[in-house]
């Protein structure tokens, strides 16, 4: 038996033109996160200022500072202050939170079902949450949870939906990615139908707008009261997912590989699915289900920082938050005083981005 031939491989060459340029270093990652955070702060202030009554960013900042520090506002500014602080600020913050949450959840779902086409919307988790939320809103129930009843309903709906989709698409314990997406899309339409039926049978005069709200999403119902739950869920969700970075990496390599690396695919997938359902449910309860953010953001971010989840999960929530703040701004200013559903804008932006992504040669999208 001859010993292995001596290595003759050349040293690492510089990346060639055909390879996508990625920011590999830790400092690069910190720089990206810092600039995205700065962009988020600026976006939030600008977005709070814009609307039917335009307030310049400097003024907006002054009002916000006054609200936070308990400063003085002159009497003739009270109306503007009310608009800024009571209406727009919670709305813009909610947009940022939901954008962050949807992106993080999209990253996690894509890894744990090993499918680049997955997101809570595609897999029916969002629609399941809508059914839960609508059910509680229209028919009551879960009264023990008080003001959190709708959120709890949405979480339960999301959980049931993800279990159903997961169960229906796995055969003999193996999970076929294609089957999963097909099942998800079908279930998603089914849940939307169920939700519509519940709404139309309910004694309400606003059935159509309600259906639109739950299927396309809106931040119109934002208030300071609803923010803490969403903030807690999104923050905890993002932090926990970030800690799960390495198991997510390993899960994305396949169940066999995961087992051989000491990661139990079943156990991790189950607990992550519960977490994802929780975050999705809480978000859907306050904003309806918003498509495309959870699908497109992870891909955009991976193109810049690579596939490693610890990195993707640091950047994606920030990018998603910035994106959603602008989407919401467009939705409420483009045809003011009417509002466009968020799903309309995310789709108008998301679809072309998605198709461009898939056609890019340097970005390998779900294999070749």
């Amino acid at each position, binding site marked *: *038996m*001859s*010993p*292995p*031939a001596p*290595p*003759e*491989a*050349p*040293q*690492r*060459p510089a*990346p060639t033109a055909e*390879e*996508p340029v*990625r920011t*590999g270093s*830790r400092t690069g990652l910190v720089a990206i996160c810092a600039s995205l955070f700065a962009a988020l702060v600026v976006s939030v202030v600008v977005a709070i200022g814009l609307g039917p009554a335009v307030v310049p960013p400097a003024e907006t900042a002054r009002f916000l500072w006054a609200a936070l520090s308990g400063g003085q506002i002159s009497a003739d500014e009270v109306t503007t202050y009310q608009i800024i602080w009571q209406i727009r600020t919670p709305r813009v913050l909610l947009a940022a939170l939901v954008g962050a949450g949807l992106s993080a959840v999209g990253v996690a779902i*894509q*890894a744990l079902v*090993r*499918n*680049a086409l997955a997101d809570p919307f595609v897999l029916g988790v969002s629609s399941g949450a809508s059914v839960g939320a609508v059910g509680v809103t229209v028919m009551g129930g879960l009264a023990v949870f008080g003001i959190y009843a709708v959120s709890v309903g949405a979480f339960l709906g999301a959980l049931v939906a993800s279990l159903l989709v997961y169960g229906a698409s796995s055969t*003999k314990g193996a999970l076929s*990615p294609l089957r999963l997406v097909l099942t998800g899309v079908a279930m998603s339409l089914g849940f939307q139908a169920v939700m519509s039926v519940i709404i139309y049978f309910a004694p309400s005069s606003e059935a159509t707008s309600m259906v639109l709200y739950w299927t396309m999403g809106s931040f119109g119902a934002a208030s300071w009261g609803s923010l803490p739950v969403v903030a807690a869920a999104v923050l905890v969700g993002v932090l926990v997912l*970030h*800690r799960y*970075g*390495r198991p997510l*990496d*390993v899960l*994305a*390599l*396949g*169940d*066999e*590989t995961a*087992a*051989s*690396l*000491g*990661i*139990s695919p079943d156990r991790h997938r189950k607990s992550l699915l519960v977490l994802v359902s929780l975050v999705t449910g809480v978000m859907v309860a306050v904003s309806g289900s918003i498509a495309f953010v959870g699908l497109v953001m992870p891909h955009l971010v*991976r193109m810049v920082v*690579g*596939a*490693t989840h*610890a990195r993707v999960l640091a950047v994606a929530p920030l990018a998603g938050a910035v994106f959603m703040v602008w989407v919401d701004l467009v939705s409420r200013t483009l045809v003011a005083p009417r509002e466009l559903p968020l799903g309309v804008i995310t789709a108008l932006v998301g679809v072309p981005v998605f198709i461009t992504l898939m056609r890019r040669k340097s*970005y*390998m999208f*779900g*294999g*070749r």
Partner: protein
Amino acid sequence: MNLELDGLSVVTDGKSLVRDLSLDVGSGQVVGLVGPNGSGKSTALRCVYRALKPSSGTVKVDGQELSSLTMRRSAQLIAAMTQDGAVDLDFTVEEVIALGRTPHQRGSTPLNGHERDLCEHAMRRLDILHLARRGILTLSGGERQRVLLARALVQEPKILVLDEPTNHLDVRHQVRLLSLLRGAGLTVLVVLHDLNLAAAACDRIGVLSEGRLINSGTPKDVLTPELVDEVFGVRASVVPHPLTGDPQLLYSLDS
């Protein structure tokens, strides 16, 4: 470290995939599993790297039952090169190889200097150092196989199980891979399709047919024309390798 399959049986959906398989892989030995498609080779391996729970029987390492260890602990001892290479996300080669350190790490701490050296050494050994920054999805099948083996080596296991590691490899890399297995000083259980490579690389060979171990022993004892005819339904002449003396099979196409 000694690996022992003891009365291993796997039944799924009423079908017996592996029946009462007992096989001993001595410390530092290279043992090959051969057999026709669907004879239960991969299923047996899956029980060793814990992707599958056996219906009955046990897998033991140095006499200790695998099921009594945590997944993490057994991954520190046993590394696998598996068949499911289909990755959806475009990790770079060095990222995939670094994941071999998973069972040795807590949380998401980055690799330390020793671990980075380990990765580089493995890449050099498998002739893939020049691919380090490439996306895993841009590699050819053979290059990807070498990446997977590098990841298994980085795991610093005592036992290595491989499921058809020479798939997609050109002749040069088939030979290199098998000589690397021989020289690694690990306890190796490997599924091979190529009987001649198995004869050259393995200390002992186990032959599986319909889930049952029907023969095991040195390549010379096991790989006889009669056995090849019985198990594979193929007529073959067996000649000694002119240099090493290992049995080599020559197939004739007429039936």
